[in-house]
């Protein structure tokens, strides 16, 4: 098997699937956020792999996108976990199915 790009893409697809399943299935809001982070990381790995094996590796676009993506993901994690803590303070639970005050 000497197709390194496809190897990385298939691994990244599997990782994305695992994160997606976790974000859907887990009831704890923190673990749903961890699943979303794993999905973001899988997408970052795709950027790096395409940059490394693409026709123009001197353009640095993939690495730049990953650096900015990591910064945005850090901001997202901070705000998301702060929301979980704020909701926990009101509802005394971190289980996502019980965040149902807005259910019509």
């Amino acid at each position: 098997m000497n197709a390194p790009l496809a190897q990385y893409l298939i691994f990244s697809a599997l990782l994305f699937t695992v994160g997606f399943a976790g974000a859907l299935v887990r009831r704890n809001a923190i673990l749903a956020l961890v699943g979303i982070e794993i999905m973001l990381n899988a997408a970052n790995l795709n950027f790096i792999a395409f940059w490394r094996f693409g026709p123009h590796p001197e353009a640095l676009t993939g690495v730049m996108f990953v650096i900015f993506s990591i910064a945005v993901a850090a901001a997202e994690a901070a705000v998301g976990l702060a929301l979980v803590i704020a909701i926990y303070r009101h509802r005394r639970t971190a289980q996502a199915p019980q965040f149902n005050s807005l259910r019509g």
Partner: protein
Amino acid sequence: MPHELTFLLVAGATLGAAVAAMALRNIVHCALAAIGAFAGLAALYLQLNAEFAGFAQILVYVGAVAILILFAVMLTHGSEASSSTRASGWAVAALLGLCLALGVGRSPSLWRDAKPAAGASARQIGGALVSEYIVPLETVGLLLTSALLGAVTIALRETETKTSDPGIHEERPPRASEMVSRS
């Protein structure tokens, strides 16, 4: 081939850690497994000659985000009450994974023997960050500042509005003056 062997080892360990992070019962164990998955991804970045992204991944994910997740677990007394898993979620995820794998497998241009390119040095990335990507860099700095200020504002205890709330009032620990007057 040693490169492929290391890829298979690191990829297997990362995938196993990710599955453990999403499947274990204890939430602290889940967080620790997620840290392992982030570290494995950093190793893959390093293997792909993206040193700057790999070390940024270690600093941000293995350092900051992991501590943030562990603190959130501790502050919410993390425990998953009902352990019943939703089968529909697994089915949708499996369908998505099948679609993605089929999409990669059926693209012949991805399977050609690509020759690896030279990596980018930190000097090149730094030069590009302050010349070509200066506006995104400043925007990200602004975004991070406002996001962290917003996170602090959201998570901060609202003392003025909470004192009139009887539910919170009961759980307030007794003040020192009350303790003195009681004794």
